[in-house]
């Protein structure tokens, strides 16, 4: 992954409000407020959500503050680049927070689909809290969200070049790391339980059926739907799919363009025993969480000819 160029630090009076530094400092301020309350207090939850939003925006700004700009008005992009728009009554608008987390998932490999899902859910709680009479942070059990919260924060802060201690201090960060480790261990146990259950069902099938299902799985897996792995429950050929974590690498091989790209797995599926697993941490526990390389081959004409979508035509129709 390409990291942003380091900046030259020259004396300057003000810091841009959309800079990674300014946004991270504000996340720290909110985290300080969060820590003034017991972990099961609603205010702890609300401040945690506000801090996570700022942390997400800081991480995106580290790539470039322009990624935060609401592109519907070019003045927002102009502002993000450090200029002062002259438009009347201009108030800078940034992109929706769900879009921020979606972009981070695609740009930071360790910010997985699971973490994106958690972040979006936590933002929904915040929205409900500030925009409705609902009380989403009351009675929220910490075991259900705090370990994932701290893990998401850790991934984002490490991307920013720091560590969790910078957000919550030494004492809380030790506790947070313990919670993260325990939670990952628990989810590991849970997924292995599931794998064992599928294995039991598989073992109960007769040999002929197992062979038939394994052959079907092999045929299905050859279709190029993802990366082929061995199912941890039944041993048949299965598939993992995931998100690209690097730009594709292309090279010419005679008349062919060979494109390779690194992926981080996020889902597993075996059609033989029907086992499905989602989430990198669970996949890793089952031994199918390694990054993989996908290779695509195109001929030159196919690669460089613009794709025709026939949008001006009616739907395809095999006429009699």
């Amino acid at each position, binding site marked *: 992954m390409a990291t942003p160029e380091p900046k030259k*630090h020259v*004396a300057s009076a003000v810091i841009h409000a959309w800079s990674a530094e300014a946004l991270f400092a504000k996340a*720290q301020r909110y985290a*300080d*407020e969060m820590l003034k309350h017991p972990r099961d207090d609603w205010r702890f939850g609300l401040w945690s959500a506000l801090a996570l939003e700022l942390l997400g925006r800081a991480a995106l700004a580290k790539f470039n503050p322009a990624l935060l700009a609401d592109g519907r008005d070019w003045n927002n992009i102009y502002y993000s680049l450090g200029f002062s728009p002259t438009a009347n009554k201009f108030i800078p608008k940034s992109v929706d927070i769900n879009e921020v987390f979606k972009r981070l998932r695609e740009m930071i490999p360790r910010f997985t689909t699971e973490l994106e899902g958690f972040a979006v859910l936590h933002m929904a709680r915040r929205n409900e809290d500030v925009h409705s009479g609902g009380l989403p942070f009351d009675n929220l059990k910490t075991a259900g969200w705090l370990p994932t919260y701290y893990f998401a924060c850790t991934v984002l802060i490490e991307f920013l070049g720091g560590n969790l201690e*910078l957000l919550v*201090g030494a004492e809380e960060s030790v506790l947070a790391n313990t919670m993260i480790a325990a939670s990952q261990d628990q989810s590991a146990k849970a997924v292995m339980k599931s794998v064992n259950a599928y294995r039991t069902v598989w073992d109960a099938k007769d040999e002929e059926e197992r062979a038939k299902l394994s052959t079907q799985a092999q045929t299905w897996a050859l279709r190029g739907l993802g990366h082929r792995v061995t199912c941890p429950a039944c041993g048949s050929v299965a598939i993992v799919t995931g998100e690209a974590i690097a730009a594709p690498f292309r090279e010419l091989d005679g008349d062919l363009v060979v494109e390779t790209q690194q992926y981080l797995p996020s889902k597993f599926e075996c059609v033989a025993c029907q086992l499905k697993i989602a989430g990198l941490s669970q996949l890793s526990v089952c031994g199918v969480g390694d990054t993989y390389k996908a290779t695509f081959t195109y001929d030159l004409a196919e690669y460089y000819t613009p794709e025709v979508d026939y949008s001006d035509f009616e739907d395809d129709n095999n006429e009699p």
Partner: protein
Amino acid sequence: MNCTSKHAVSSPGEKFNLLSEICERGYAFVPSYRVNDVTVDAFATLGEVTVLDGFCPTQMLVPRSAETVHPNTYSGNFGRGEFPLHTDLAHWAVPPRYIGLRCVKGDRRVATRLLDGLDVLRHVGRATLRRALAKPRRPLRGNTQLLHLLDVAGQDEILRWDGLFLLPASSTGEAVFLQMKSLLEKEEPHSLILGNLGDTLLIDNWRMLHGRSPVPIVGSDRRIDRVYLANIF
């Protein structure tokens, strides 16, 4: 707190390795340097003079009583009294890297005081200082901004402190402000006198805190020129 280049300067008749001296102890002193040059020209042989937005290239520092100066300056607050240890322009997003002070008219009764920020880092702790948030006491260019007492700037760190122009902006900031004030009361800064024409002091403003001893009520016409530098040759 690293130094980013290590070039020795050689100017006619003089050879210095100021940067290594500054790396070693946070400042460098050159006695009676280029006494016939104007200040900005003398400093231009030592480093890259930087002109900050709203500042003259050379600023003349003379003792003034508090009643005669606006309160947006140290003299307007402390008059001829002691200037507490601080970072120049600590309330800026990025304070100037180096301060150059040059004696135009000396007074041996007045000292420049220096405290090594590495002592502060040792006492308070890097991680705590990086969590401690401050803000300028007044809006700057129409905005209020959050600042870390310890920032990372590439390979370098910026320690900032000003007990007057900065206010704590988080609970960690409040705790560290108390800790800093107590620490600075206890610490014994190094005193250095710019007594002769051309006496030149270069200070790493990202590392060192500096201040001034009280100026006698009468009889002092001390004058020090100040410039800011982006780097040292």
